[in-house]
């Protein structure tokens, strides 16, 4: 194993570096804030001769994903990047990528959706694509963005999986923030990620086949079931490849990361860059004698319910922190966590906290407040207000 090179890079460059190491053949992309640096870097790599790939300049994100689908069906390794409105515009094509079982990897600079127009961090763009049948990975820091890009290709292209994957890095907090990363050597990534050889046939004019065929009522449900089971069974493959990555490159990943949860009475569950702040809050609360832990979602789809049961099944309280909102119910991770425990004899009392929408700052104190509110509910034995919005400016509310 060659030594890893230490670099200081913005999040977008970390995901672009990760992508470059995977030697993609085709990168169709339509730049959008805050992930614009990704296609910029990729085009520089190609221009400088560091990457032998075709960059397809398209007129919209819908076209970007369409080009990804065509290229991937032809057997190419394909990646792209987008965010916010761009992910929303590709929505239609996202379902086609997964339905056709194409292992496309997309780096997303997680950003709020309009209206009001806002370019800052939250998870609404990818969470709103939850049902598109893609795997969804979220990064706490730039290193994770880089590593997850490499692992996403390997997992997506595994014969047991063959599904597309998104790798999220929070807008600005990661995309435009410079952090130190360790970059694996090219030969080691080559060894970890063999060339893509699709087992299900290629789009090839010399050997034609039918792709994207009609699925009548006699076939549609079975095809959707087949695809759904494949995504659900991805859990095992992800665990296996996370473990292999750790063995080779020395960095540990878990679908749901357990930080000080084993003896915790109350567990905070987070996703994305806020997890670092939450961990600092947990450390300070621990110093104050509070028995609190942090469960960090690295994989949101397929939802790691099995690990959540293991980690939080014996806790008294679970505070699910969502940087997204599904109006009319609550945060997306809250709904998934609640659903996870629906048939269990024992489950933690659950509260949902909505925070950090549209780039609103998230502080350690916010997590302490969430912890104490959850503790109060546990002590009272009831949850009076299941969904609470945190860090609201009452002065400007109408």
């Amino acid at each position, binding site marked *: 194993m060659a030594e890893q090179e230490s670099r200081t890079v913005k999040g977008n460059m970390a995901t672009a570096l990760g992508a470059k190491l995977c030697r993609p053949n085709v990168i169709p992309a339509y730049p959008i804030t805050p992930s614009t640096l990704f296609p910029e870097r990729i085009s520089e790599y190609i221009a400088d001769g560091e990457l032998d790939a075709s960059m397809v300049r398209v007129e919209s994100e819908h076209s970007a994903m369409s080009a990804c689908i065509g290229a991937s069906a032809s057997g190419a390794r394909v990646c792209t990047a987008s965010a916010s409105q761009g992910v929303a515009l590709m929505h239609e094509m996202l379902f086609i990528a997964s*339905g*056709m*079982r*194409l292992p496309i990897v997309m780096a997303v600079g997680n950003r709020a959706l309009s209206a009001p127009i806002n370019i800052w961090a939250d998870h609404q763009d990818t969470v709103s694509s939850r049902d598109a049948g893609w795997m969804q990975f979220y990064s706490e820091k730039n290193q994770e963005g880089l590593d997850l890009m490499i692992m996403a290709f390997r997992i997506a292209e595994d014969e047991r999986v*063959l599904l597309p994957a998104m790798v999220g890095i929070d807008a600005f907090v990661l995309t435009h923030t410079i952090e130190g990363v360790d970059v694996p050597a090219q030969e080691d990534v080559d060894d970890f990620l063999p060339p893509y050889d699709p*087992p*299900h*046939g290629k789009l090839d004019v010399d050997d*034609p*086949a*039918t*792709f*994207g*065929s*009609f*699925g009548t009522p*006699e*076939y549609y449900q*079975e*095809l959707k079931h*087949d*695809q759904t089971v494949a995504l659900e069974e991805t859990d095992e493959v992800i665990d296996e490849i996370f473990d292999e990555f750790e063995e080779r490159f020395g960095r540990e990943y878990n679908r749901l990361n357990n930080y000080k949860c084993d003896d915790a009475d109350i567990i905070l569950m987070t996703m994305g860059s806020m997890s670092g702040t939450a961990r600092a809050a947990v450390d300070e609360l621990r110093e104050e004698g509070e028995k609190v832990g942090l469960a960090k979602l690295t994989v949101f789809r397929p939802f790691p319910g099995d690990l959540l049961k293991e980690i939080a099944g014996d806790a008294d309280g679970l505070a699910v922190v969502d940087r997204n909102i599904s109006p009319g119910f609550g945060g997306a991770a809250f709904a998934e966590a609640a659903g996870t425990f629906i048939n269990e004899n024992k489950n933690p009392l659950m509260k949902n906290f909505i925070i950090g929408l549209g780039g609103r700052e998230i502080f350690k104190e916010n997590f302490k407040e969430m912890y104490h509110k959850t503790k109060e509910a546990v002590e009272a034995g009831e949850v009076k207000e299941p969904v609470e919005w945190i860090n609201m400016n009452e002065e400007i509310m109408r």
Partner: protein
Amino acid sequence: MSKVKITLGGINEDEGSSKEYKTGSWRTMKPEVDIEKCIQCFKCFDYCPDAAVHKTEDAIEFDLDYCKGCGICEKECPVDAIVMVKEEK
């Protein structure tokens, strides 16, 4: 119910498989023509929304692989040579 097994991603190794897909299967009414009455004006040919009326040497015939049974041909026929009848399957 169909007995053809599904494939990964619905990919069909055979090309041009849409040619095998006959879209008239869900029709409940089908057209019948009385050749004796037909004056070969071909209004049915012009108006058929599915190109399911073919001209023949002496009149017309219906392509029941694709006819959806909409009845526009019956409506447009100026000499009542076409009638829609219930299709027993």
